[in-house]
């Protein structure tokens, strides 16, 4: 059921490298530009793409992603339109896994069953919903697994060994290790500690472990790639995008290229680290 995700990690392993996972916000700065960016990401070296579902109150995100969500909402982005963009992406790209990442309220309001059916049909492979810990698995995680969508869980430095099994129990696709206790786009972690943390998680699961929060450059990506199966970058891409917008937050000629340029740098970083191919 997580075929595209499994195949992509398989491919990265075969190439002896970590995967690059990129995050951009759906509808930021406008729907068409965000679709063009989404399409350009795999070409620039992204292996898996995360698409943000905008929400007014993203309580685990820093200023960059908050502002991106508000820009998207201002131009009328909503869940229906976001699924539409994914449908159009999927029409041209059958292989790149698409992960929808956001908060539960817009999904709850859309209707869980209807959302899962529509997301699956649009070509979504997995979901990351920040405010649904394992204690709330009945809400979306279990129905998503039943519908054939991976529910990707965040593990954090506060998730101790006693709690990890519960966090990993219904996780599918991959595990997303949040490398800091903090919000997105904030501190840069001590990358030396990341490998140890990933090892700890891997003792509890056969799933690939990707690492995010605080990765801003090709060098960071390379450092994380040393110890993880994948590297997630979000706020840095959104910052790059934002820096090209005009005074009214509209896209300019350089917007798409600013994002793809950074993705290329990150991709080079990830690819600079040779890993043993899985046996």
């Amino acid at each position, binding site marked *: 059921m997580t075929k595209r995700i499994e195949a992509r990690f398989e491919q990265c392993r075969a190439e002896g490298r970590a995967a690059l996972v990129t995050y951009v916000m759906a509808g930021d700065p406008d729907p068409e530009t965000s679709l063009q960016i989404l399409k350009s990401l795999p070409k620039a070296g992204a292996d898996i793409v995360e698409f943000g579902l905008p929400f007014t109150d993203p309580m685990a995100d820093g200023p960059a992603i908050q502002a991106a969500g508000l820009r998207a909402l201002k131009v009328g982005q909503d869940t229906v339109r976001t699924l539409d963009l994914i449908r159009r992406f999927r029409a041209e790209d059958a292989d790149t896994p698409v992960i929808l990442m956001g908060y539960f309220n817009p999904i709850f*309001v859309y209707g869980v069953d209807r959302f899962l059916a529509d997301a699956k049909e649009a070509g979504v492979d997995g979901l990351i919903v920040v405010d649904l*810990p394992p204690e709330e698995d009945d809400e979306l995680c279990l129905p998503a697994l039943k519908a054939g969508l991976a529910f990707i869980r965040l593990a954090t430095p*506060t998730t101790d060994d006693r709690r990890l099994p519960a966090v990993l129990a219904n996780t599918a696709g991959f595990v997303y290790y949040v490398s800091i206790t903090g919000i997105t786009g904030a501190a840069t972690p001590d990358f030396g500690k990341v490998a140890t943390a990933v090892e700890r998680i891997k003792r509890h699961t056969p799933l690939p472990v990707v690492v995010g929060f605080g990765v801003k450059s090709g060098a960071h990506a390379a450092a994380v790639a040393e110890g993880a199966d994948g590297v997630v970058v979000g706020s840095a891409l959104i910052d790059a995008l934002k820096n090209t917008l005009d005074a009214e937050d509209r896209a300019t000629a350089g917007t798409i290229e600013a994002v793809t340029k950074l993705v290329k740098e990150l991709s080079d970083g990830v690819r600079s680290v040779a890993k043993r191919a899985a046996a």
Partner: protein
Amino acid sequence: MSAQAQPNSFRTGPDERGHFGQFGGRFVAETLMPNILELEKAYEEARNDPAFHADMAYFSTHYIGRPSPLYFAERMTEHLGGAKIYFKREELNHTGAHKVNNVLGQILLARRMGKKRIIAETGAGQHGVATATLCARFGLDCVVYMGAVDVERQKPNVFRMNMLGAKVVPVQSGTRTLKDAMNEALRDWVTNVSDTFYCIGTVAGPHPYPAMVRDFQCVIGTETREQMMEAEGRLPDSLVACIGGGSNAIGLFHPFLDDKDIEIYGVEAAGHGLDKLHAASLSGGRPGVLHGNRTYLLMDPDGQIQDAHSISAGLDYPGIGPEHAWLHEIGRVTYLSATDQEALDAFQLCSRLEGILPALEPSHALAKVMELAPQKPKDHLMVVNISGRGDKDLFQIAEHLGNQIV
């Protein structure tokens, strides 16, 4: 009453997962979950520890000034010509509102847990002031998040917090009001989980907060029962309280929920009117998930949270505590609403008839007392919770009434 089956008791919630019917829960980021479980455990231990209760009792009496009086509002009663009206005088507490009851409990708990840094969100500033006060008393670091809009309209309270040694952080994100202050406090907590205690000001947020804050506020209703027995030899016939998140209301209501003959009224803020900008989540919202719990929220068809509006910063929140959402759905409590104008009228009436300046928040409750009391017989005993004093609102009220104070 709704068609739903009625429970034997309305006072047993929440269940072990923090649910009141379909409401409540623990909708938070994984980073916070271990903290929330630790808090739940620590609270359970404290709740069953006589030493904790002894500390609560000592500081309630000698620091807050409890019990607060139950006062017969004779002139208001005469003027309205119906029910016999009693005020529960929570505005006489140290710091001027009911908020301090909850903060005392949470700060004593934070001390037991060895947490040295306290964070809080505040709307009107009353919860921030109460938190800053107890942090000063116990020598704890205090950071208060407050929407930039609220900082502007509640300046006296910002100054009070500063004098008490707290750091007030104006929140510039989103709508720059209470909901954004809560987002920012949660972001701080996610970042500083190990040494920080989040002191939530109302009966909202992830489990165990709604139940814990309620328990700390129940002193209001428990005292009211005893005081009314002493004054009238029987329990009241009706209770009225205003609702933003709903902590003063649940504190008054909860000890009476199983006395099924007692009418209970919660009053939301109808702002400019329910068909315009308002803050009445039950009257104008629907179920959703925000700030760690499922409850009634003001939102657009896509589930995006909408701006609330109320003249009262303390009621200016697009959600409501999950237990109120449940009490609304099962029909035990009747939820009404009062507009900005109705609250201003009630403020003036109360000030002139009783010599008590109520805060704008309980002025909403008083506005509905003005409607309900005349419909009741003279032997009907009605209690309204005067949850805070109006001093903090004077500048704003003056502006609305077309006066300049200075």
